[in-house]
């Protein structure tokens, strides 16, 4: 009995804060120089990596989901659209890769929103750092997720007969272009994450944006098979340009116009939604 009490007391003792040690720490601390924008952004990116480590469930959307997309659409439409699965996968894979990555970007908004609801956002906002760095950090972390999704999808594609004529270089260029676009596109979600009140509404709005944008594109079929009014939309959709550029790059071509359009859209998205995001971030 007595022994238990004593052990318990020493444990509590050990866990109690120590004022003298604390005092010494407070005194000895000299303030380091203000960190650079790059350091703080990368540090927030590191936080995103730690989140993946601690909450591995969130990896479903970059592993199981892309595999499902590839298999589902290849075998569903393959026979009907291109006559055979192996023929269709050559056309479909770069497109479905683009579509899936663009779809996965919407989780950025949910992540931003979840942080706001918890108190940690207040701390970040009260730090003397380059203001956009928490946002850039989210997006850098997400780029890693997009890369994982891309690797998974390309792996599955190769298994079921996808043979990119552009080789390793073409594939890497395609993925690189897709990453630039996904990073830029995600600023839409950081905006919604800050704008909307709940995680559910962020999800809802994201779905409404993402479905028409990704399906009304050249991912599944050649736009020339569509009615004129739809062609007008599809041919000018950023997703169409990105999908076309990725498809051509991976096939060994150099689609200068589509690359330019993709990068142009990326620049425009950052230029519009970046400042809106930061305004909302500062205004809250």
């Amino acid at each position, binding site marked *: 009995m007595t022994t238990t009490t004593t052990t318990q007391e020493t444990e*509590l003792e*050990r*866990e*109690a*804060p*120590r*004022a003298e*040690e*604390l*005092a010494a*720490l*407070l*005194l000895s*601390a000299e*303030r*380091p*120089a*203000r*960190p650079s924008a790059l*350091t*703080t952004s990368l*540090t*927030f990116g*590191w*936080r995103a990596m*730690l*989140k993946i480590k*601690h*909450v591995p469930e969130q990896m479903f959307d970059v592993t199981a989901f892309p595999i499902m997309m590839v298999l589902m659409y290849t075998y569903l439409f393959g026979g009907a659209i291109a006559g055979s699965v192996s023929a269709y996968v050559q056309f479909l894979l770069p497109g479905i890769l683009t579509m899936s990555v663009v779809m996965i970007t919407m989780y950025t908004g949910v992540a931003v929103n979840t942080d706001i609801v*918890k*108190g*940690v956002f*207040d*701390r*970040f*906002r*009260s*730090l*003397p*750092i380059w203001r956009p760095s928490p946002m850039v950090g989210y997006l850098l972390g997400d780029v890693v997720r997009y890369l994982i999704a891309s690797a998974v999808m390309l792996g599955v594609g190769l298994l079921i007969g996808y043979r990119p004529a552009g080789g390793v270089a073409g594939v890497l260029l395609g993925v690189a272009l897709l990453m630039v676009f996904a990073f830029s596109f995600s600023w839409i979600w950081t905006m919604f994450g800050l704008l909307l009140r709940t995680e559910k509404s962020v999800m809802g709005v994201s779905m409404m944006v993402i479905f028409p944008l990704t399906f009304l594109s050249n991912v599944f079929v050649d736009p020339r098979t569509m009615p004129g009014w739809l062609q007008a939309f599809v041919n000018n959709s950023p997703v169409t340009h990105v999908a076309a550029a990725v498809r051509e790059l991976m096939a060994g071509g150099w689609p200068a116009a589509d690359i330019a359009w993709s990068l142009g859209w990326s620049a425009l998205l950052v230029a519009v939604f970046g400042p809106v995001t930061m305004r909302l971030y500062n*205004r*809250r």
Partner: protein
Amino acid sequence: MSTNLAIETTALVKVFGDNRAVDGVDLRVPAGTVYGLLGPNGAGKTTTVRMLATLLRPDGGEARVFGHDVLREADAVRSRVSLTGQYASVDEDLTGTENLVLLARLLGHSKPSARDRAAQLLEAFGLSRSAGKQVKAYSGGMRRRIDIAASILNTPDLLFLDEPTTGLDPRSRNQVWDIVRAVVAQGTTVLLTTQYLDEADHLASRIAVIDHGRVIAEGTKGELKASVGSGTVHLRLRDPARRQEAERVLAAALGAEVLLDADPVALTARVDGGDRGASEQAARALAELARSGITVDNFALGQPSLDEVFLALTDRKGGAA
């Protein structure tokens, strides 16, 4: 220039819809002290703190922290303050160590220095054994401590503590108080919001009482207590049946309202010292009770508690409105 002021606000206003959450708050917080913002839930304490920490934009008035305007010089303010919010402002998914290393890096520490600082603080806060656990597994008291540790990674000049002990058990509350005392002893100014009067009484040297977005009283603890009368007598009678009679006798002798406590033999009355002092007044009241044949078992004369001050102040305000 009032450079010895940590915080100076003039007619600070924040409106949410048609709710004037902060409605013209004037504060002057001297540097190097613990300043208490005392008030009930929804009084405007947190909103005031959030404006001072550059998290909310004021809708009117001015606020300066160490002479820097919170709107125009927000970055200068941010480099000198730290905030511990009402809810743990750390990432619950990360471990204690990861949280502190993350914030130390954001404050400009190199990787090795961030790791050292995190380990030292975890040790000093008695958290080293839970350093590798996710914060979501921490108890309420441990969360509070990691939160405060995160706020003093770089010793701030001004630390906002927003209801630091709400929901804590007495042991954890005392630990937080010890930490606050250690921090302020090193020269940091602390702005403490609390709804607990004894907390303000223990820690703060000056107190502003806030209600409905306005400061309704301000001063040192002594001044606040004196403002509602110089003392209070607490009496315990032997016979509960004589309490009503005793109430009449006391009211006549002291010329003040007598409160009947929940305890059936206890009475409390405010003593306004006047020229002759509280003790003489109280002695006279005791003599009157003796003459009426009422036996008093227990008698105490003391300063009113901050609870009494607070209730008196908010009552007065409520009556006027």
